[in-house]
């Protein structure tokens, strides 16, 4: 109670900042658009955004209402053209400064978030005083109501969420493409330097044999043996390359046995616990396999571990992998490329990696790949909460009554002037109220139908949009 009052006092004190901000904003906008002092605009937007963000943070801390920032993602830095110049519309610049400023200006100007923030600021100085009576009587309730009001204008919109997802997808796609390309280059190098060179050597040896075979059969025989050995070595080399592309056990047996095979090949004593009802998709299997492989070899090589545990399990449609070892710990992702390589691989699936490695061990790496398993494994993912289902069923079951008999049919009776009143409520009312009642009934019925359609649709949309870009939790 007392704490709520304290918070409300802070909120009201906040007006001291908000009230002068309004004329200042007005002045800046006037100077920007009236006198062309465009450099003021970004400052103005940033000032309002600062106030809005402060409000979001307070609401998040004080109530359970999480207000997501609605801003569109910032434009990427300008990329120079082939001739080293930076282009902005139809002008070329030598430095990226002006194009970057232009992009930023456009971004701030066209983002609906900027203008909604401004609207919030102007209305907020009215709403807060209006809420004061409620604040005094029911402070907790008042705070919640205020948070809901803030969310109305400061919360994320569908468009801003989609834009955020698009930019996240673009980033992960680029990461995935980069790591694919790097892999291709590595394979190309392996084949070029190893296999190809060895095959050339075998071909040359065989050429020499051809020349020698008549004059010096003994030497030819010796050369043939050499060629045979070389072909054996080539095959060994090729096997190594293939293992790096897609390990044969993974192709033949799937993730569970491939991880078991890894455990066997490891010098550590590795316990494997895999609980998956079916095989995940091949790209997921490969990513997990290489991640586990890298982690196990890290543990053995750098951590000096003797024992390790690999645990792979399905958590609904999410795949969770944890690798624990009893090594000396103190692993630092910024030192080696191993962990960041795994992160890059997992990024393609929105996967996250959490490392817990205190000095002295043990080291635990937990990876989670959200929604990579078919949803039917998990069962009831599509289900709505029970109250929504009940509401939809009730709406469908009753909506016909106000629309048809009490609304339309009663209207027809009224138009035809039939004496029969039956159970049509409107016709039993005094003349003056009959038409409003009929129209009201139709409105109520239609509204109920719309609700019955909207609730499940909105639920599905919420589900699609809650796939928030996964944050990086590397600590």
């Amino acid at each position: 109670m007392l704490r709520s009052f304290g918070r409300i006092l802070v909120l009201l004190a906040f007006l001291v900042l908000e009230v002068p901000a309004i004329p200042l904003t007005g002045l800046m906008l006037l100077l920007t658009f009236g006198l062309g002092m465009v450099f003021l605009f970004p400052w103005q937007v940033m000032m309002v955004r600062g106030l809005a963000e402060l409000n979001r943070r307070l609401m998040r801390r004080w109530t359970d209402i999480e207000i997501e920032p609605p801003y569109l993602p910032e434009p990427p830095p300008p990329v120079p053209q082939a001739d080293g110049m930076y282009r902005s519309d139809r002008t070329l610049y030598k430095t990226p400064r002006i194009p970057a400023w232009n992009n930023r200006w456009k971004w701030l100007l066209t983002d609906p978030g900027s203008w909604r923030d401004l609207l919030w600021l102007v209305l907020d100085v009215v709403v807060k005083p209006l809420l004061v009576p409620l604040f005094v009587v029911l402070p907790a309730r008042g705070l919640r109501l205020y948070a809901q009001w803030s969310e109305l204008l400061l919360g994320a919109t569908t468009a801003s969420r989609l834009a955020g997802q698009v930019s996240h997808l673009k980033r992960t796609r680029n990461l995935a493409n980069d790591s694919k390309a790097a892999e291709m280059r590595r394979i190309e190098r392996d084949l070029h330097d190893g296999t190809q060179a060895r095959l050339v050597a075998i071909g040359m040896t065989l050429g020499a044999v051809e020349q020698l075979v008549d004059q010096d059969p003994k030497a030819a025989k010796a050369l043939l043996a050499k060629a045979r050995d070389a072909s054996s070595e080539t095959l060994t080399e090729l096997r190594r390359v293939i293992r790096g592309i897609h390990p044969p056990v993974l192709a033949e047996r799937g993730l569970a046995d491939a991880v078991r095979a890894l455990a066997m090949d490891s010098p550590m004593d590795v316990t494997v616990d895999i609980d998956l009802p079916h095989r995940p998709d091949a790209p997921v299997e490969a990513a997990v396999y290489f991640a586990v492989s890298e982690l196990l070899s890290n543990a053995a090589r750098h951590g000096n571990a003797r024992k390790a545990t690999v645990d792979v399990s399905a958590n609904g449609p999410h795949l969770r992998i944890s690798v624990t070892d009893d090594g000396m710990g103190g692993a630092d992702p910024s030192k080696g490329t191993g962990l960041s390589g795994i992160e890059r691989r997992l990024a393609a699936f929105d996967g996250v990696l959490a490392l817990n490695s205190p000095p002295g061990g043990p080291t635990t790496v937990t990876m989670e790949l959200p929604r990579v398993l078919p949803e039917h494994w998990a069962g009831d993912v599509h289900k709505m909460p029970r109250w929504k289902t009940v509401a939809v069923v009730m709406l469908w079951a009753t909506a016909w009554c106000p629309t048809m008999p009490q609304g339309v049919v009663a209207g027809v009776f009224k138009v035809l002037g039939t004496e029969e009143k039956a159970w049509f409520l409107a016709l039993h009312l005094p003349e003056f109220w009959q038409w409003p009642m009929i129209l009201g009934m139709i409105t109520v019925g239609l509204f109920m139908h719309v609700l019955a359609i909207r609730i499940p649709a909105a639920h599905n949309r919420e589900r699609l949009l809650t796939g928030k870009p996964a944050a990086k939790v590397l600590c």
Partner: protein
Amino acid sequence: MTNRVLVAEDLYLLRDGLVHLLQAHGFMVVAAVESGPELLKGLVELRPDVSIVDVRLPPTFTDEGLKAALAAREKVPGLPILVLSQHVEQLYARELLADGSGGIGYLLKDRVFNADQFVDAVRRVAAGGTAMDPEVIAKLLASNARDEPLAALTPREREVLEAMAEGRSNAAISQRLYLSESAVAKHTASIFGKLGLAPSDDDNRRVLAVLAYLNSR
């Protein structure tokens, strides 16, 4: 002594080459099949003296051959089978050795290049012995690197152990390592002592004991 052989391999050239190679060395090829179901049928019905089986076979091109081999050995315990593959895995070696009855081989396909050694391995498997690829043994030893009894072996004893685990007899080991047979016998006795295994005069049983020891770690 002619041995009745079954060959299962999906690549025509390699299958044909294997058949010719085996015929040239006095084997009688009773069937040359190219898919998993055919292989299982052939193994159970013909009961060849030894079968040479590729791990990857149609229709799934996964581990069809290995599965058929394991299934057949379940029905006909000790049915001699030599498994060939482009790659060797400890996992598969353990599965093949799990029943502990011998008559099993697991080699890389490259080993066919050396006809004499390959035929020798086929004969060994046919006689109820084992033929493990040196690479399998190397992997087994590498994953047991921290095993203390193993670490206590001298380099010479380690070489003997490797050769023994591949499935070679004392005579073959002495030839390969340029030792006298009695020296090899002495080394093997010492290895068995260090690993805490019961000594045995029977070559095959001895090999299986060593592999079981390595696999149990």
